[in-house]
């Protein structure tokens, strides 16, 4: 006797209880603290902040713990939390020229004011597993240098002075907000940059890589990559002036791209721009390359039909929370749709069989 499936509620409660147990793992192993994640998995924390669009390292670390290390799940937790937060104002644009740089490199000039500063990079490490780290993670004392006091100028400013690089048009217009208004196309550059900075790192990386391999190649040099802290200032109406409300770590990448000139623009270098929360340089460089590819129309270039040039394609598919939600929804019941497909297939097959039977009979 068939009994209609009941118990969805109990099944969900049990699944959640099991999930919590799995998250904790073996009770004989010490529990991971949020502070440990924050301090020792800081690049994961950075990614969650960047794609979660919320600068809060403590919450990002908590999200990573709760998500059992599943980055997209952690980003989702942060996004869902973020939407509930009230907006009480907006900051002034951050001045990345005043950044206290931990890292600052240029691939276009051997040296420049401010120098080349490698900072804490994996770049020249040999990727050999450090088995000593499995036993203990103690680090030796290191030498400390003096921090540079004066601001570090942007490399592209030097090209700007000579007029060799395309100038960015300044605008006093308040940019749109991807998270508060529906995306309507064609979008503009501020919206594209917003989408890219919170877009999935893997997606943006692959899009950027595709331009390097010839799908709308725009031959990028890393004009400058800088990582460091900048002050966030906000106008306080009651005071009548701006005050510093905190500081955030950012990665900024400016690419210098070859450009032969077009119908509308003289030969000059062009720019791509990437700006991402935290130390996220792979993402910042990728973002700059994709930004540059998306600027084809503004620079009078040809549309080569490459995916990275297609604003609609990039903007509609860069968000991993949208993508994963829709992808995973196919786990949900689809009995009703499937049933209607079953009936259709049976009907079409029946008709197809009926049509072919006489031929078989004739052959017999």
């Amino acid at each position: 006797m068939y009994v209609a499936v009941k118990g969805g509620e109990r099944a969900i409660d049990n699944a959640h209880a099991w999930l919590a147990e799995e998250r904790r793992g073996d009770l004989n192993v010490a529990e991971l603290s949020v502070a440990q994640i924050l301090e020792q998995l800081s690049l994961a924390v950075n990614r969650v902040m960047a794609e979660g669009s919320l600068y809060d390292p403590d919450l990002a670390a908590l999200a990573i713990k709760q998500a059992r290390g599943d980055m997209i799940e952690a980003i989702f937790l942060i996004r869902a939390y973020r939407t509930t937060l009230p907006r009480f104002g907006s900051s002034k644009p951050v001045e990345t020229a005043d950044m206290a740089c931990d890292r600052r490199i240029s691939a276009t000039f051997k040296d420049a004011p401010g120098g080349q500063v490698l900072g804490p990079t994996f770049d020249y490490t040999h990727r050999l597993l450090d088995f000593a780290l499995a036993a203990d993670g103690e680090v030796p004392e290191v030498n400390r240098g003096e921090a540079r006091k004066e601001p570090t100028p942007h490399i592209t400013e030097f090209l700007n002075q000579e007029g060799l690089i395309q100038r960015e048009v300044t605008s006093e217009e308040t940019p749109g907000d991807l998270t508060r208004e529906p995306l309507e196309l064609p979008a503009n550059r501020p919206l594209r940059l917003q989408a890219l900075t919170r877009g999935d790192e893997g997606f943006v990386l692959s899009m950027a890589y595709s331009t390097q391999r010839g799908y709308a190649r725009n031959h990028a040099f890393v004009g400058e990559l800088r990582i460091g802290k900048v002050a966030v200032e906000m106008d306080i109406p009651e005071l009548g002036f701006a005050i510093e409300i905190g500081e955030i770590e950012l990665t900024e990448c400016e690419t210098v791209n070859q450009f032969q000139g077009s119908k509308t623009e003289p030969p000059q270098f062009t720019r791509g721009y990437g700006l991402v929360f935290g130390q996220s340089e792979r993402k910042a460089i990728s973002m700059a390359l994709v930004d540059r590819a998306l600027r084809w129309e503004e620079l009078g270039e040809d549309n080569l039909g490459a995916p990275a040039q297609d604003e609609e394609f990039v903007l509609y598919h860069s968000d991993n929370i949208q993508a994963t939600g829709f992808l995973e929804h196919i786990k949900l019941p689809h009995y009703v749709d499937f049933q209607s497909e079953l009936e259709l297939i049976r009907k079409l097959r029946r008709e197809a069989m009926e049509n072919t039977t006489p031929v078989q009979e004739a052959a017999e």
Partner: protein
Amino acid sequence: MSDYNFAYLDEQTKRMIRRAILKGLAIPGYQVPFASREMPMPYGWGTGGVQVSAATLTPEDTLKVIDQGADDTTNAVSIRKFFEKTAGVATTEETAQASVIQTRHRIPEEDLREDQILVYQVPIPEPLRFLEPSEIETRKMHSLEEYGLMHVKLYEDIAKHGAIATSYAYPVKIEGRYVMDPSPIPKFDNPKMEMAAIQLFGAGREQRIYALPPYCQVVSLDFEDYPFEASKADHACDMCGATNSYLDEVIMDDAGNRMFVCSDTDYCASRRKAGHLGAQAAAASAALKETAA
């Protein structure tokens, strides 16, 4: 629940959604862009419907949530719990008792009334999407009422298969103007869309809301010589004996024997309560009597 605003969303957001709903009702079938919020459930799992319900619910409302016609499917349970927690509204499984019904993939069998609102969860609101992937293009096609592509698709189906090979999310034309995606309901449900209740459609990920006011004209696209047909499995419900309800097919044993039951669980249960018995239920109750005797 004091941790959240009533029905989770803040009042500004609800107002923004209500404006989109009103615009949708004023232009039936037109997809109104709205600034969809991230919800605490994934995109694709009913965030559009949830946002529309949140903007629609009042504390006096009674909510019913169904998925595949059933109140007890996991995602329906999850969404109902969400509103119990964040809005504290009364919930019900009885179609007639509900003032707001959120649904995925079905329209209840029982006729809805003027004092009810049916909220659909919509995955892809654009009926032309699988014919034209670009949103810029499809919006242009709607504004020019350029639906030739859709008719060509339906025609090609007939040419190839002898029938229109769309069994769910079957496109409809609203009041002779907009071609609309009815969400992935089986085409069996299409004729029910001309109803007394307000119908609201929410697509969260795609940031669109559309709506049908009561008694709005809804025509399933077809051809004179190949008229639209609302089809279902050619059986009666094995539980309640209904011959006019949409049926789910259930595999019973390793030999692949099947039975058919109403997908609308409330409809089926209330019919059984009223004494209607289908083939399987009748056999089971006879067997039960025998053992008792």
